[in-house]
């Protein structure tokens, strides 16, 4: 191990078995490891103890409305595309208690959620997912009312990204400029080659972690292999989305007959919004007890596909599936840009894979474009 620690922006090379050391250092620093692991029917993100919990030798095949686990004929550590659900469920949990209110005579007492945010090391974050976190950061942290719980979880998280060399059939991050190479925001970024991991240092924290691991500077040949693998990945996206003129295309076609065709297939089941790594809508509900003296206030994931979501005084502003699907797609690809300065889509393809009937937003946009 050289005495010097690699600089931010530098590329190091570590032996595959030394990833275990990286995990160990993170654990010693107090991080809970979250990473890909083999579930019963999918590679899911969950708490892991070490390298042995990674889905070594397993991959996945994804298509619209289809996901299948597949054994690989090698021992790749990160040889899958994406887990069914994104890191959103750890950074912005589906159900979160915000506070408890207790009646005290004429007034009431507020007990805020004082539990410290967990300290997660997110292992295996893909480029599209890192971009999604940056988008959710803008949603939750910019403006006058940042979400405290999200901020704490984000600030305390260590991001160990992994460049994607296994894009799936429903992937189109290249179209969205979100991948396959990870952009800024990681602490360490791995690229898996046959024998080694090439590690890019993204932060001072990442530098500290790497300095406690056996490493050497990455060689020119290794870096060339990384570039080649990523260039190949870019060429193997299963889906493509033509984003040219995109907000206007949708704004100018709000009455396009294709919305009716989608509505015939759409179940309004909300799966697309829940697996989307950027969808952020939530509801706040009170859960009182029978005495009327105490209530828990919860934040739960919501969806623009549920009827209650668009119910306002006097009625529902989006009573039909047609208007709800249109709202989702135009927000994601068009009005998101007006609202937050970037597209809300990162091209991860989860909404295509996990739609029970396989509605494909790239195909829907193409259909509208084809018949303007």
């Amino acid at each position, binding site marked *: 191990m050289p005495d010097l620690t690699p600089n931010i922006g530098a590329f190091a090379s570590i032996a595959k078995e030394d990833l275990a050391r990286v995990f160990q250092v993170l654990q010693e620093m107090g991080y809970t490891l979250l990473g890909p692991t083999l579930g019963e029917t999918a590679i899911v993100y969950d708490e892991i103890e070490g390298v042995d919990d990674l889905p070594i030798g397993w991959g996945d095949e994804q298509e619209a409305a289809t996901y299948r686990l597949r054994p690989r004929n090698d021992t790749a550590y990160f040889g899958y595309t994406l887990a069914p659900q994104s890191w959103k469920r750890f950074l912005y949990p*589906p159900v979160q208690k915000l506070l408890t209110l207790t009646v005290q005579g004429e007034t009431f007492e507020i007990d805020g959620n004082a539990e410290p945010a967990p300290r997660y090391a997110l292992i295996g974050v893909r480029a599209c997912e890192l971009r999604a976190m940056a988008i959710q950061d803008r949603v939750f942290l910019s403006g006058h009312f940042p979400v405290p719980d999200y901020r704490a979880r984000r600030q305390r998280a260590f991001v160990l990204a992994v460049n994607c060399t296994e894009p799936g059939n429903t992937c189109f991050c290249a179209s969205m400029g979100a991948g396959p190479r990870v952009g800024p925001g990681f602490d360490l970024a791995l690229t898996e080659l046959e024998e080694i991991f090439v590690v890019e240092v993204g932060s001072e924290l990442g530098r500290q972690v790497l300095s406690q691991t056996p490493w050497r500077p990455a060689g020119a040949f290794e870096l060339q292999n990384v570039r080649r693998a990523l260039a190949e990945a870019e060429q193997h996206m299963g889906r493509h989305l033509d984003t040219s003129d995109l907000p206007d295309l949708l704004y100018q076609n709000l009455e396009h007959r294709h919305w009716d065709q989608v509505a*015939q297939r759409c179940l309004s089941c909300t799966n697309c919004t829940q697996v989307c790594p950027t969808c952020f809508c939530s509801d706040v509900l009170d859960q009182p007890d*029978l005495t009327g003296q105490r209530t828990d206030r919860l934040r739960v*994931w919501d*969806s623009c596909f549920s009827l209650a979501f668009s119910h306002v005084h006097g009625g529902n502003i989006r009573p039909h*599936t047609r208007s709800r699907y249109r709202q989702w797609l135009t927000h994601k690809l068009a009005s998101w840009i007006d609202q937050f300065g970037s597209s809300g889509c990162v091209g991860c393809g989860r909404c295509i894979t*996990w739609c*029970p*009937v*396989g509605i494909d937003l790239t195909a829907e946009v193409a259909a509208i474009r084809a018949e303007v």
Partner: protein
Amino acid sequence: MNATETGAAKANGAGARARPRLAVFKFASCDGCQLSLLDAEDELLAVTDAVEIAYFVEASRHADPGPYDIALVEGSISTPEQLRQIKEVRRQARVLIAIGACATAGGIQALRNWQKVDDTIRMVYAHPEYIETLDTSSPISDHVQVDFELRGCPINKHQLLEVIIALLVGRLPRLPTYSVCVECKRRGVTCVMVAQGIACMGPVTQAGCGAICPAYARGCYGCYGPMEAPNGPALGHQFEQLGLDAPDIVRLFRSFNGYADPFRLISDKYEEVAP
């Protein structure tokens, strides 16, 4: 679904909270839904503090006469006698809440609605002449005004408590009408239909159970009945894509809530094309 704000608390005045009188009635059913109230063990004492249980034969032989502030009605209407009884229950109840798939959709016994009832009776009973029954098993709302419907086979005790709490404070019960998929995703369950090709009623079924069956790698059976604005034809089409034939699809839509309109229309459609 219909709900009113004629809550017991309102009826009793908002200030000092009088204990509303609760009654539990049973029609054609298995008792599982009313058992959910007894099953609320941790909350049961608080329930009896909050409401006076005036009539609940499964829990106590002590039975007070009506009128009642809240009537929980379990079961479907299946006999001429029940037809008379439900009208009397309605007369005695300020707020009538139908609980469970039998009371809200006719239940599994509504399968007989697709057959000639005399054939069914002869098939089941040695002395069919003793049996007096209606042609159909039907939901409570077919016969009397229902103020609120609580879905499920059986109902969920937390939802039942939410309804009672809502009545106590005089607001609408707040229960989800979206799909079971929401509960799967919140729970982190991997979709059984996408990842395993298992036919699942979740995308057209109302949430409430917490996605129990998909969590154990089974497709949803539709116990909570049709969700808000369900798209049955689209799901039926997807079942075909998964390789199911028409009789399979009929069976999936025609179970505990099979007689509920959105499910019935789909099963009838597939029955027409079934060989």
